[in-house]
Every structure is written in C-alpha cells, then in structure tokens.
C-alpha cells in the first residue's frame, strides 16, 4: 500500500485491475484504492508478472503492507500454478505468525529478499492492529468528513512542524496577459491556454534559480529534487481539495502543460487520480485569482518545503517607465520552510518569477 500523501495512514483496496499471470509494465495502473481523498489509481514500478494478489478487495490495510507479489521478467514460477509462492521465513517466526493469525505471505522482511524474522511478524501484527480490516463501504456518507480530517491532519502537522516564512510581491503581468490573449486569438476553442498555464511554467523555471524551495524535508534533512513536479491545488466538487502533480513542469511546453492540467483537473473533478500524482509533487502552486482573491499565503504540504500563491489579475494605477499607467498586476506569494531557505533566497525566487513573466515568448 503506497503512501499517497503525508496524511495517509491506510487505504482500502477497491479493485484489482490485474490477475495472477498478467504481464505488467512500469507505470501501469494495477489497482484502485479508496483513501480519504477519494479513489486513487495505483501504479506499479517494476516490469514483471503478477504472481499472487495478497490483499483481497474490500480490505483496509496500512501504508507499507504488501498488496501483491510480482515475479521479475524471466523469473520462474516459484510454485505450481494455483499454489502460493513460499515465503522465506524462520521456523520460529512461522510459528509466531500462526499464533497471531498473520498470513506469512503478507509479511515483508526487514531487508528486501531477506528471511522473515519474528520481529517482522510482530511489526506486521502491530500494523494490522493499527488498521483493522474493514469492508469497503460504497460512497461512504461521511466522505466529506473524511476529507476534512485528511486536510486537518496534514495542515496541523505543517503548522506544528514547519517554521513558515511568508513573502509577497506585486508583478506587472500586462505583457504576459497581452501575449496570451494574442496567442489564444490564433487558436481554436479547444486549443486555447488558460491564463494559469504560462504562470505554471514561469514558477517551475524560476525554481531552477532557488532549488532549495523544490524538494522534501525528510528525517531532519532537506532532499532537493532535480525534477520540478508542480502540485496544482484543485478544488474538488462538493468540497475539499487535492494538489496532484504536473510532472517535469519546467521542461514541458505550454501546450503540454495545458494538456496535463486538463487531464488532472478533469480527473480530480470527476474521475480518478493516480498514486504517483498524489505523492510526488515537489512544490505546490495555489491559484485563487478566479475567486477574486488578491493574494493568499498558503500552508506548506509536508514533506514539501514551499507553496506559491497567485492572486487575481487586477488593473491598477502603476508606475511604469517614469509615468503612471493602468497596468495588469498580480500578487504572487511564497510560503517557505525556514529550516531549508531564508527570506533572501525566497525573494530571489519571486524576482526570477517576475522577470520570466516579462518575456512570455521565451516560456513556450
């Protein structure tokens, strides 16, 4: 059971999309898991053949539990068809598993490929106790409460653990707005770009200048990410929000970003998200301008270390080339983790963002 966010402790296996004997490829969606944030598609990260499905549908299991066993390409079937592959386990651990009613096939050894010990069985038993098996309830009536609970857990943890600092700057977006309008005139309805798309690209590219805003705080240290996976905060129908990843946002064209945004937004608002989209954003972007908000200071989604907020574009009286002109202006904000970066570096990020937005044709 993969962790699909800092706030997830367990998930309910709703559906298997593969069966024993099926060939699977890296990145393939193999199962659907119900979490507090709705149904999520689970991908597999190895090529191989499904050997056995360990967790049956309808069971709620803790993060880290084995869902299925996979054979590597070329690996022989370990046992006769129909018989489960035999786990490598010490006799004393096998006896303990029997006493505790633990299926040894579901126990992971401490070292990958190692022999299962008594301690491994005890750990599996403790995990099962923490998340007792429960039947999946179709369309749980308390879904909304579950979503609020998930947001409460993640945001409380963030405010408890992360020393936030907050910066704001007003950016003249007249040039990029005009450029986008001219670009969209040339395009058919279905090919038009939303105003947030060039902003996404500029945020992602600006992070190259200040890499300490992009990555994760894990085990007391910052782990920067070479890739920029932009978590786009999207409101869910009926309340709550999720921030799935737009992968490699700094290296994608505006058209590719628009296509990705359309894809995740459609699935957030009506369909299903994939596990990797939920768990791997390296920074979050929240754009509340549509609601008429001029600025927002976000709360960092752990283990990320920064969140960028974009407000609405307003026409303001603005000093421009030595005179006062009516310009389109947007407030951009940064909430960042002071354990990893300082206000000076955060300021450089916002300055880079403002600069990139003055030359939109280079963002393509």
């Amino acid at each position, binding site marked *: 059971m993969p962790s699909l966010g800092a706030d997830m402790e367990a998930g309910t296996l709703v559906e298997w999309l593969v069966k024993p004997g099926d060939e699977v490829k890296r990145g393939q969606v193999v199962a659907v898991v119900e979490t507090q944030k709705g149904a999520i598609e689970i991908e597999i990260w190895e090529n191989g053949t499904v050997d056995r499905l360990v967790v049956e549908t309808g069971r709620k299991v803790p993060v880290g539990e084995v869902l299925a066993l996979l054979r590597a390409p070329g690996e022989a079937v370990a046992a006769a068809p129909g018989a489960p592959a035999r786990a490598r386990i010490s006799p004393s651990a096998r006896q303990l598993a029997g006493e505790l009613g633990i299926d040894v096939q579901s126990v992971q050894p401490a070292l990958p490929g190692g022999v299962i010990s008594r301690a491994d069985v005890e750990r599996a038993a403790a995990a099962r106790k923490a998340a007792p098996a429960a039947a999946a309830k179709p369309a749980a009536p308390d879904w909304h409460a579950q979503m609020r609970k998930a947001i409460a857990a993640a945001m409380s943890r963030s405010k408890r653990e992360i020393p936030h600092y907050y910066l704001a700057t007003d950016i003249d977006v007249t040039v990029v707005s005009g450029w986008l309008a001219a670009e969209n005139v040339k395009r058919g*309805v279905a090919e038009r770009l*939303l*105003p*947030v798309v060039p902003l996404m690209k500029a945020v992602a590219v600006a992070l190259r200048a200040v890499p300490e805003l992009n990555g994760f705080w894990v085990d007391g240290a910052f782990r920067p990410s070479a890739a920029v996976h932009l978590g786009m905060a999207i409101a869910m129908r009926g309340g709550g929000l999720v921030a799935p990843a737009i992968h490699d946002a700094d290296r994608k064209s505006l058209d590719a970003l628009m296509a990705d945004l359309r894809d995740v*937004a*459609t699935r957030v*608002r*009506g369909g299903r998200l994939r596990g990797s989209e939920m768990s791997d954003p390296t920074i979050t972007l929240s754009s509340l301008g*549509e609601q008429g908000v001029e600025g927002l200071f976000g709360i960092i989604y752990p283990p990320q270390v920064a969140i960028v907020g974009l407000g609405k574009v307003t026409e303001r009286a603005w000093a421009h080339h030595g005179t006062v002109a009516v310009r389109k202006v947007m407030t951009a904000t940064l909430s960042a983790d002071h354990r990893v970066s300082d206000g000076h570096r955060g300021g450089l990020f916002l300055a880079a963002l403002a600069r990139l937005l003055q030359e939109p044709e280079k963002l393509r």
Partner: protein
Amino acid sequence: MSALTREQIRSAILDTLCAIAPEIEPAGIAPGAPLREQIDLDSMDFLNVIIRLHETLGIDIPESDYAQLATLDSAVDYLARRNRAG
C-alpha cells in the same frame, strides 16, 4: 447552418452545464444571475463549457467574448446573435 431557436440554445447550455457539473438542478438556475456564483465551475470547467457549446452548436466563441456568457440569459442572447450572424 439552420437557425437555432432560443429554446434550443437554452437547452444546449443547460445540457452542457449538467454534463460538467452533474450535481446541479437546471430548474434551480436563476437566469439573470452569474452562473459561476450558482454553480461550482472553475476556469477549466468554464473552458470545457465553451468547447462543448462550440461542438454542439457549431458557434465559434472568441476568448474576448467569454464575459458575455456570464449568466444563462446573457449566454442565450449572445449565442442567438452569433448564430444569426454566422
């Protein structure tokens, strides 16, 4: 293209809104009030409404005219005008 009646246009708009925001009750929409204050539509949803209307009615809607589709009544007026002009 044959001329569409205002009723056909209104019904196409309501069908589109229901497809994108399945939770709405079409009869409950106040025709003179902004749609985005009555229906949970984000900018991507709104763009999808425009795309669907373009596909079903065959009317091109430039981005600079999006504001004219703010309410149900203004959207019917606008699309009827574009339909006659087209």
